[in-house]
């Protein structure tokens, strides 16, 4: 049996807006094992963002169980949540969220700055390694404005890898990129997944799901579908099949 990275049981989240109570998640259960590449899909209003916030330990469930790497998140305080995010999760955002005027390597080092167990030498070493892994070993000292969108997202991926998280959590990570670049990024995700890294990818684009080996579809706060994809497309192949760019 593979290790359970995420364990969710009858998870509910409701918000009180004035006198109304909004049930964003109405009792969700699933488990993600080590090495899985899961896409969580859903249209807007499906509870996708709420799910993402809870998975990322930015928010806590109203009731139910959420465990990440064996740690129950529900009763943790703000600081403990921050530590979990720091040690167990790698975030990737749609708009990259890199620090402006800050070099790639310094951006990648960021999560380690909040981990006092990591020395500054180790921090640099790990950041260089992470950037090499995403193919930016030559651009350590470029600032975001000197990098293309795809390269910026690679820096963000390197940043998510640098703390050796148990899971990478991507939020519409290809949303700001053109088709070619997004295939490049997906191919990178697949490569990382092949190395055993667990990836949860939240998106509303159906074709992204074809690159993952499992898809969970949310609708109105409930799981509508949860299926394993037996015919995973290779993003690298798709990329090769794209018509050549005219330049």
């Amino acid at each position, binding site marked *: 049996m593979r290790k359970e990275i995420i364990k969710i049981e009858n998870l509910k989240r409701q918000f009180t807006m004035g006198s109304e109570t909004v049930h964003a998640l109405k009792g969700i259960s699933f488990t993600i094992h080590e090495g899985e590449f899961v896409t969580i899909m859903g249209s807007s209003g499906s509870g996708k963002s709420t799910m993402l916030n809870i998975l990322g330990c930015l928010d806590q469930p109203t009731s139910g169980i959420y465990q990440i790497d064996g740690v129950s998140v529900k009763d943790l305080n703000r600081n403990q949540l*921050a*530590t979990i995010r*720091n040690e167990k999760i790698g975030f990737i955002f749609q708009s990259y969220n890199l620090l402006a005027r800050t070099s790639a390597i310094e951006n990648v080092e960021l999560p380690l700055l909040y981990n006092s167990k990591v020395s500054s030498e180790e921090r640099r070493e790990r950041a260089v390694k992470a950037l090499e892994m995403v193919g930016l070993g030559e651009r350590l000292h470029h600032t975001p404005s000197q990098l293309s969108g795809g390269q910026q997202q690679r820096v963000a991926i390197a940043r998510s890898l640098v703390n050796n998280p148990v899971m990478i959590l991507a939020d519409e990570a290809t949303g700001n990129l053109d088709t070619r670049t997004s295939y490049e990024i997906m191919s990178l995700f697949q490569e990382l997944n092949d190395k055993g890294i667990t990836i949860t990818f939240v998106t509303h684009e159906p074709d992204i799901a074809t690159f993952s080996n499992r898809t969970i579809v949310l609708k109105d706060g409930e799981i509508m579908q949860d299926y394993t994809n037996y015919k995973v497309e290779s993003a690298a192949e798709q990329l090769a099949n794209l018509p050549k760019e005219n330049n």
Partner: protein
Amino acid sequence: MRLLNLFKIATKAIVLNKTRTLLTMLGIIIGVASVIAMLAIGEGSKESIRTTISSMGSNMITIRPGADDRGPARGSGGDVQTLTLKNYETIKEQSNLLSYITPVVNGGGQVINGSNNWPSSIYGVKPEYLDIKVVGLQSGSMFTEAEVNSAAKVAVIGQTVVDNVFPDGQDPVGQMIRFNNIPFKVIGVLEEKGENTFGQDQDDVVIAPFTTVQKRILAIDYLNQIMASAVSEDDASTAVEQVSKILREEHKLLDNEEDDFTVRSMEELISTFSSTSEMLTILLVAVASISLLIGGIGIMNIMYVSVKERTKEIGLRMAVGGKGSDILMQFLIEAILISITGGILGVFLGLGATFFIENFLNWPTSVALYSIIISFAVCAITGIFFGWYPARKASALDPITALRYE
């Protein structure tokens, strides 16, 4: 370790916003610099008053005729003729708190030596005068008691008089001069004392036996002043009281009658002038402190804008594991760094300004170490105080909202 990292983060943010940081600092720089410069001016003038007055003899007690003439609408003390030689003798006899005492008569006139002449003042005194004024001779000697008794026409002159009536550099000792057509033999030259705080040239003076001046030059039978010195600085105020009592008895004043003389010690004079300059110092420092306060508000303002502007960055930092306290410290360190750097620059600017004031405006200044320490401490406190609130606000942000902030 953690603090070191936060320190790095904060420095980075400051370096990335050089212009803004510098402008923010400007308020603090000007505030600190003006506090230091203002205190230096205040201290300097106080010190120079004190030195001048002390150099005039800090134990000195002056007795003038007429009531206290500090207020308006009173006759000038010099016109009143209530002090006599007999008063002097009584005080000398009865007071046990005075070490030296001399009668003083003085007047103005022309000092003439050949074709050189110079308007100056003549002081008729006894030899004790030098001890009371704490002044020595650079050449020659002082006249003696015997010369006073015989009303000898001898004089000791100050350097300014020497410079003006003996312009050729010859030794004045032994030469004859004339004061208001009365010939005097110069027997000594006073040590140079320069100008006092009130701009009076202390070397522009002729000193002669009081008998000679009283009878031959002024032709009066009263005294303009009696000068004395208390046995010690601490006894000065008691001596003032004692002298007053003796004089009241001597002048047969009733209890309900005002003094017809004024006795004052130097200490009193010092405090009168010091209090004026102290008021000035307080005023200057108050104004300077306001500018420091405004500098602090400037920091708060910028930190506020900075927190707003970097909301998304704060969200990201929180997402990757920054705790609320990390964010708080980051912004607090930033604010403190700005204020302390501003403080250091301010200290240098203040010292520079003080140097300028001293050397180009020729105002007496004195930089007190405490003024540097105080303004620096105020700076650090300003940073913490005004940085705290924005930092607190940043740390309390919800990471989800912050991440979505556009």
